[in-house]
C-alpha cells in the first residue's frame, strides 16, 4: 500500500517565522498533491494543492514546493501566525478514474506558533 512519509511529527515556530513541513512518497503516479489543515474537533480542510507538472505554487502565505525526481513535496508557511496552529496533513491523490479517488494521507504534523 502506498505510504507517505511526513516530517516533522511536531513543530514549534515563533510568530512571524517560516514553518516548513516535508513529505516523501513512493513509486506511483499521482494526479495532485494536496495539503490539509485540521483544527481540533474539525474535519480536514483543503489548504493548497499542486499538480505534478508544476514545481511551485503559492497562495498567500502558503507555498508548496514539489520535487518530482526526488518524490518529495513540502509546505512552507511564511509569516506564521498563532491562528496557523493546527495539524497539517499532506496527501496523495491518484489519477482520476472511478474507484480510485481515495486520498492517501501522511501521518500529520502538529504545528504550534508561539508569540
Amino acid at each position, binding site marked *: 500500500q502506498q505510504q507517505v512519509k*511526513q516530517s516533522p511529527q511536531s513543530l514549534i515556530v515563533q510568530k512571524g517565522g517560516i514553518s516548513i513541513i516535508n513529505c516523501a512518497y513512493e513509486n506511483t503516479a499521482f494526479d495532485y498533491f494536496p495539503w490539509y489543515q485540521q483544527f481540533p474537533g474539525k*474535519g480536514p480542510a483543503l489548504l493548497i494543492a499542486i499538480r505534478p507538472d508544476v514545481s511551485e505554487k503559492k497562495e498567500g502565505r502558503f507555498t508548496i514546493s514539489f520535487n518530482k525526481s526526488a518524490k518529495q513535496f513540502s509546505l512552507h508557511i511564511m509569516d506564521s501566525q498563532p491562528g496557523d496552529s493546527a495539524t497539517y496533513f499532506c496527501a496523495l491523490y491518484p489519477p482520476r478514474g472511478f474507484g480510485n479517488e481515495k486520498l492517501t494521507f501522511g501521518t500529520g504534523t502538529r504545528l504550534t506558533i508561539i508569540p
Partner: protein
Amino acid sequence: DAGVTQSPTHLIKTRGQHVTLRCSPISGHKSVSWYQQVLGQGPQFIFQYYEKEERGRGNFPDRFSARQFPNYSSELNVNALLLGDSALYLCASWVGPENIQYFGAGTRLSVL
C-alpha cells in the same frame, strides 16, 4: 451553502454493539467517501460511493459496510464493535472535474 454534515457528532458504544453513522454531502455532490482517523494519525480510506454504487474499498474488515441513498446521503455501518474501532469517522464529498474532497467535522466514536 451547507458543507458536509455528519451525525451524530459523538457516540459511545460498548464492544460487540453495532453503530450507524450518517453523512449528507454538499448539495450537488454525487460522490461520497468515508475515512477513519485514529487519534494521532492521518485519515485512512474506508469506502467510496458514487451514484449509490460502491466504487472503492479500503483495507477494512467485512464488519464495515456502507450504502448511499438516492439523495446521495450515505450511511456507514460497523458491526461487532472492537475497542480498536474507536476513532473519528470522516465523510467527504466531491464532484468532478476538480475532484477536491470536502470533509465534514466527523463523528467521534468511542468503544468501551
